C-alpha cells in the first residue's frame, strides 16, 4: 500500500499572529467537521434507524445518532488535515480553515483524533460495541484508506472511498437493532452506487481544479468521454437498485413513485451528459446532473423517512 505524502507547511498562507495560540473561532472548528457532509450522515443514519422500527428508547437512539454525526465530522476533520495542501490550490476548498491559516494543522489533527475516539467510545457505551466498531471502521476508511491512499493514487478513488459515505445507515441499524440487516445493506448499496455519478458529474465541471491539485479524478486520467460512459453505466445500475426497498417490502407506494420518477430523471440527465460533449451545454448538463443527484438521494431517503416515521406507509405488494 502506498501512502501519498502531503506538504502542509507549504500551504499555510498566513502566519499565526501569536505562536502557540489558535487563531480560529468556533465557526472555524465547526467548519472542520464538514457540516453539510455531517447533515447527510445524520439524515441517512436516521433513515437506517427508522426503517427497522427499533425497540429502543428515543434518548438512546438520539444519543447514538449524535455520536454517529460526531464520528462523521471527525473523519471530515482528519480529511481536511491531510488534504490541506491540495485544498489550498482548489478554488472550491481554498477558504477552508487550515489553508486559510485560521487553524494550525496540528490543532485540526488533535481535534479530529479526539472526536474520533470520543464518538466511538461513547457510541459503544450508549448502544453497543458492534456499532462502535463499525463507526471506527468508517472513520479509518475515510481518513486513511480514502484520504491518505486512494484519493491521490487511483481514478477509482471515489468509487471505493464512497463506501465510507454509504456506511452510516449500517452503523445506525447496528446501534439500534444490535445487528446489521438487509435494510441497511440496501441503503448502503444505493448510496454507494449513487456516489460515482454524483462526484464524476462535478469532476467533469471542475476537472481543471482537480488537475491543478494533482488528484487523479476520472476525467483527468481516463478522459471526459470515458467518464461520461461510466456515469451512464453507474446510473443504469442505480435507477433499478433504488427500487430494491420496494421489492424487499420496506419501501412503500410513495417510495416506489418517487424512486421511479427520480431514477428516470437521473437516467435522462446521464444520457444527456453522455451525448453532449462540447462547450457550455456539456458543462451545464453535468452541473444539472450533479445538482439533481443531490435532490434525488434526498427525496429517496426523505420518502422512506416519511413512510416509516409518520405512518404513511402503503405497501406496493399486498
Amino acid at each position, binding site marked *: 500500500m502506498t501512502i501519498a505524502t502531503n506538504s502542509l507547511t507549504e500551504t499555510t498562507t498566513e502566519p499565526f*499572529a501569536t505562536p*502557540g*495560540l*489558535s487563531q480560529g473561532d468556533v465557526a472555524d472548528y465547526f467548519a472542520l467537521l464538514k457540516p453539510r457532509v455531517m447533515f447527510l450522515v445524520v439524515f441517512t443514519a436516521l433513515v437506517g434507524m427508522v426503517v427497522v422500527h427499533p425497540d429502543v*428508547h428515543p434518548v438512546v437512539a438520539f*444519543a447514538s445518532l449524535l455520536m454517529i454525526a460526531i464520528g462523521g465530522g471527525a473523519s471530515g476533520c482528519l480529511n481536511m488535515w491531510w488534504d490541506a495542501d491540495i485544498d489550498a490550490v482548489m478554488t472550491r476548498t481554498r477558504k477552508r480553515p487550515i489553508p486559510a491559516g485560521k487553524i494550525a494543522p496540528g490543532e485540526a489533527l488533535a481535534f479530529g483524533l479526539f472526536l474520533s475516539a470520543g464518538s466511538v467510545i461513547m457510541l459503544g457505551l450508549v448502544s453497543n460495541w458492534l456499532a462502535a466498531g463499525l463507526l471506527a471502521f468508517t472513520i479509518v476508511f475515510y481518513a486513511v484508506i480514502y484520504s491518505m491512499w486512494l484519493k491521490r493514487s487511483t481514478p477509482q478513488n471515489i468509487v471505493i472511498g464512497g463506501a465510507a459515505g454509504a456506511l452510516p445507515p449500517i452503523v445506525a441499524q447496528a446501534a439500534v437493532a444490535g445487528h446489521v440487516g438487509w435494510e441497511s445493506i440496501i441503503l448502503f448499496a444505493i448510496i454507494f452506487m449513487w456516489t460515482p455519478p454524483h462526484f464524476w458529474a462535478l469532476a467533469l465541471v471542475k476537472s481543471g481544479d482537480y488537475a491543478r491539485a494533482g488528484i487523479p479524478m476520472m476525467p483527468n486520467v481516463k478522459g471526459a468521454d470515458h467518464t461520461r460512459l461510466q456515469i451512464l453505466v453507474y446510473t443504469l445500475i442505480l435507477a433499478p437498485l433504488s427500487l430494491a426497498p420496494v421489492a424487499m417490502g420496506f419501501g412503500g407506494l410513495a417510495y416506489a413513485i418517487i424512486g421511479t420518477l427520480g431514477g428516470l430523471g437521473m437516467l435522462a440527465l446521464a444520457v444527456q451528459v453522455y451525448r453532449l460533449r462540447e462547450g457550455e451545454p456539456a458543462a451545464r448538463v453535468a452541473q444539472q446532473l450533479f445538482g439533481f443527484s443531490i435532490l434525488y438521494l434526498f427525496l429517496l431517503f426523505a420518502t422512506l423517512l416519511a413512510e416509516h416515521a409518520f405512518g404513511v406507509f402503503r405497501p406496493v405488494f399486498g
Partner: protein
Amino acid sequence: MAQRPVPVRLTPEEQKRRRQRSLAIALTLGGLVLLIFVVTMAKLGPQVLNRPL
C-alpha cells in the same frame, strides 16, 4: 544575566476568539454531562437507584 522571556500580549480580537472557544468548550462539556445523565436514566430507569445499601 539571562534575558527574561517577552510576555505574550493578546490582541483584543485574539482575546475575544479565545473567550468564545472557552465558552464553546464549557457548553460542550455541560452538554456531555447532561447527555450521559439522560442516557443513564433512559437505559436503567428507576433501577439506577436500586442498589444494596
